[in-house]
């Protein structure tokens, strides 16, 4: 049994370093995935954008009527929240089975497992990029200004993606070992949606908004969405996101370092 420190160091040295040296490859493979998914499709990835647009249109119409809230705040908030939510769930749900899906690669060449996680997150970022075009349209319609606040949002997005990468790798290993994880994750994501301020604003919860403090996804959404909408995200959300990143990466490096030679037998 390796020591915890030894495993973390091995995960870093044998997986993270070589993976980041092959970023160009991960980008190509992520692009290939996007390409092939829509090869014979007319709208391609824009089907997703259309889906987002319909979702925002429908929910936005109903919600602004029911709760009598200002569409100029709610619609942009909903669009950004939904697009981020898709990015999170798609990564997490796909992450819970992606090593089994990619077993052909693992079984045929010596390949860093972390590179597969990077590839998955990059693919989801490509999709997010498409969806974000819709967000920009919404922001223009509601006359939001684009300034330095977008840079802050970008920092938030990078931090969120760093978090997500660790989570995908961690869930990938656990999901490869325990096949029950995939349905479990699927079952959890749905209720979690209602506990995350996507279709509501945090302030609508009033005193109950304290429960959001314990939902990392709420913090991840806040540090990207608030700056885009020209507000400062709560300081606690930045701290929480940095905290989850540190914790997530330690866990992900540990499991990668300790179990990277076992993974192949788990997916086999």
């Amino acid at each position, binding site marked *: 049994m390796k020591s915890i420190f030894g495993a973390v160091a091995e995960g870093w040295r044998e997986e993270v370093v070589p993976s980041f040296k092959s970023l160009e490859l991960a980008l190509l493979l992520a692009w*290939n995935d996007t390409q092939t998914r829509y090869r014979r499709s007319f709208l391609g990835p824009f089907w997703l954008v259309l889906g987002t647009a319909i979702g925002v249109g429908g929910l936005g119409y109903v919600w602004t009527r029911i709760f009598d809230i200002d569409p100029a705040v709610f619609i942009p908030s909903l669009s950004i929240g939904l697009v981020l939510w898709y990015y999170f769930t798609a990564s997490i749900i796909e992450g819970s089975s992606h090593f089994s899906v990619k077993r052909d690669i693992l*079984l045929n060449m010596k390949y860093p497992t972390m590179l597969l996680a990077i590839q998955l997150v990059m693919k989801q970022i490509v999709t997010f990029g498409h969806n974000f075009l819709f967000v920009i349209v919404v922001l223009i319609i509601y006359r939001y200004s684009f300034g330095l606040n977008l840079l802050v949002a970008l920092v938030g997005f990078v931090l969120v993606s760093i978090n997500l990468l660790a989570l995908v790798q961690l869930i990938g290993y656990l999901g490869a070992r325990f096949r029950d994880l995939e349905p*479990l994750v699927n079952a959890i994501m749905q209720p979690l949606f209602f506990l995350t301020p996507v279709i509501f604003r945090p302030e609508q919860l009033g005193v109950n908004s304290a429960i959001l403090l314990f939902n990392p996804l709420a913090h991840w959404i806040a540090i990207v969405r608030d700056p885009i909408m020209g507000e400062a995200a709560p300081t606690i959300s930045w701290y929480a996101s940095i905290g989850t990143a540190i914790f997530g990466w330690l866990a992900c490096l540990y499991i990668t370092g300790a179990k990277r030679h076992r993974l192949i037998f788990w997916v086999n």
Partner: protein
Amino acid sequence: MTHIAAENLVVEYPVYGHGASSLRKQIVSLTTGGRVNTDNKIVTIRALDGVSFEIKKGERVGLLGHNGSGKSTLLRTLAGIYEPVGGSLSVTGRVSTILTLGAGLDPELTGYENIIRMGMMMGLSRAQAKELYPEVEDFTELGSFLTMPVHTYSSGMMTRLTFCLVTSIQPDILLIDEIIGVGDAAFQEKANARIRNIIDTSSIFVIASHSNDIINMYCNRVIEFEKGQIKNDHPL
């Protein structure tokens, strides 16, 4: 210096699904204390059991044996995919593998797109991978099929493409499992010439096969396996 040395090599597979694989069983085992412990032991299969050999440069080794005798496991271990649990193994040189037909190829992408993809997966830059085009066109003779998605290829065509790509990066050590037999006679001849060419530039070639013809055609040494152990090792 290209070289492979194995000393008392042991490789074991854990088998899940009969013991502790599901989360429920793990949780149940937490609540019921040690009672289900016997159930919790992971069953392992010893696929290679104390195997020792040495392969020097210029050797073309054929692995013979029944299904499940350890040939493919040995290839994956040499490729660094499986980690031995006992003994020692040293592999010096750049390794290339053809273990499963069409592995790494994306069936939805065209032949050309797959050349870039595979090239980069084997460690080339995008530009270097592009330089493989003429060589692949020439060797595979796939012509306009290279502009078609790979899922339209026959297995023989896929073998041509994979074989050409894997050998085009000038590996020091080439590991092949069975699949060469899929190609037609013309391909066999070309593949043979190419392998000889690789051997000339100081390399090792290892192929696992059931067919004596293929082993006679490509190899100058045979290692026979039985139940994870070497039964016979002789030059050809």
